[in-house]
């Protein structure tokens, strides 16, 4: 446990001492802020339909996905690739610490940093609550979706980072895994058979997020995120153990 904490703490420190963290945080806030502002001005228009601003914010604009698909590779690309490139992996893996602990420690650091990136958006809800009634349930489930789906994509990023010593390759690879995970739901419309249609419908991340933003928490989806994340992390630990690659 202590060694896992050591890795977690070191990675968090590395995040906050590198300029990348602030670039990502600023971009994320810029996009989210703009989207929030657009939504609020849209709803202010008397001709617009009725809706809760945060419901639109979480589930129903494409910006959310643009941001998520960009953030996951950038946040995770460094984690293991850099250790390999610089050679620090040698003293890390000869220390009495298992591959699983290294991978989980780094993943938790990425997840913590990711949550930190989203933290400022809580302000939106607070601002709204001063002018109107906010239904906190859907806001909470919206954030649950943000963390769940984010965690899934970050796990994909950790796996990608364990496979290459180049950060660029790791980022592209993350995108290559996260893209289909995101897009697989769209296949729903290409099938007429009930089973396949339903299957792809279940896997549709945009649909999940839409439900989360409405306050619907479906435990099957949480199981999906947790199990697939665990699978990615397991594969990352195996990749790290496959030392013949070094």
């Amino acid at each position, binding site marked *: 446990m202590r060694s896992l904490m050591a890795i977690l703490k070191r990675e968090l420190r590395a995040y906050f001492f590198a300029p990348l963290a602030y670039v990502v945080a600023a971009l994320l806030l810029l996009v989210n802020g703009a989207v929030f502002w657009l939504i609020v001005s849209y709803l202010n228009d008397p001709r617009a339909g009725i809706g809760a601003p945060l419901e639109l914010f979480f589930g129903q604009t494409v910006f959310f996905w643009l941001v998520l698909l960009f953030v996951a590779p950038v946040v995770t690309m460094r984690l293991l690739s850099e250790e390999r490139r610089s050679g620090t992996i040698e*003293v890390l893996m000869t220390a009495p610490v298992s591959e699983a602990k290294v991978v989980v420690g780094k993943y938790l650091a990425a997840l913590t940093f990711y949550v930190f990136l989203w933290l400022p958006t809580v302000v939106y809800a607070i601002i709204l609550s001063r002018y109107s009634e906010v239904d906190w349930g859907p806001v909470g489930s919206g954030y649950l979706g943000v963390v769940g789906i984010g965690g899934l994509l970050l796990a994909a990023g950790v796996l990608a980072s364990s496979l290459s010593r180049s950060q660029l390759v790791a980022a592209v690879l993350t995108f290559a895994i996260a893209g289909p995970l995101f897009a697989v739901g769209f296949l729903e419309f290409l099938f007429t058979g009930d089973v396949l249609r339903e299957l792809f419908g279940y896997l549709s991340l945009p649909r999940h997020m839409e439900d989360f933003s409405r306050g619907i928490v479906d435990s099957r989806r949480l199981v999906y995120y947790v199990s697939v994340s665990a699978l990615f992390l397991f594969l990352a630990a195996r990749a790290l153990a496959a030392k013949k690659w070094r």
Partner: protein
Amino acid sequence: MIEAHQLTRRYGEFTAVDDVSFAVDEGEIVGILGPNGAGKTTTIRMITGFLPPTSGRVTVGGRDLFADGEAVRRQIGYLPENVALYPEMRVVEYLGYRAQLMGMARGEAASAIGKTIERCLLAEVAGQIIGTLSRGYRQRVALAAAILHEPGMLVLDEPTVGLDPKQIVAIRELIRELGRQHTLLLSTHILPEVELLCDRVMIIDRGRIVASGTPDSLRESWVGTTTLRLTLKEAGRGAAETLAALGGVTAVRPGEEAGSFLLDCAADTDPREEVFRAAVAAGWVLLEMVRERASLEDIFVRLTTGDEAVAGAAGGAEAEPESAAGDSRPESIEEVEP
């Protein structure tokens, strides 16, 4: 303390380490000596558990390094060749991280860090960011991280490479100091280092141990073989052949200057008189004739350049250099003695 049993490591078709077995006893300082590309780093990576061998195994205190994993790895402190550190961390932060990684409790870690900083003479840079440190200090930080948890066994891969002469002296001093408290295995391609630091030497070439013993015993097994250095004037083309035909001469090599020759002589022979008579008979002018005993450096150069006749004479050592892969031989060994 640590035993390597028939370690072999292949990278695809290439065999980097070929059936290497050795043991390092408690308290010993053992040097692995070999030219670049001989398989030193691969051997060390297998010893430290970073790289699994293709076949063979490593035991530390009787326990298998790869099967028993973490507890065994804790007994080894490792300084890799490329001294990789996290550049954004401060020295004390890095040592704190390493202590925590080793599973030390907070109080234990604090006292270990304090002690290690003192031992490695890092007090004046303890608060500095690693990225700003000189190569010499970085080496010491990496060394500090390796000894932080008081491992019984310390493995150092090329600990003085890339340092300036002053830093080399300082790090050697530190290594000697550490050798009093730890079992030490270090690799180097620098000969004087081995003579200065090690109780025992293994010379490795093309993945095989070609000789091993104390520096003295290695020299001793070569005492019988001597080299005659000749400088001749007016020696014709056939001089080398004439010299090679003399009794007791096993090989004739050209010397550094024109007209000079190096004659390898078999054990317990002294062809000096015959050389003189041959010179008189052929009408050469003998300007210089010196008998030299083999230095450790000669042994090293000869063992690692694939000279079969000479290498075969290494007392008790298994020496079977193959000429197949001998294209990339090093010209000479690097001498870095301040």
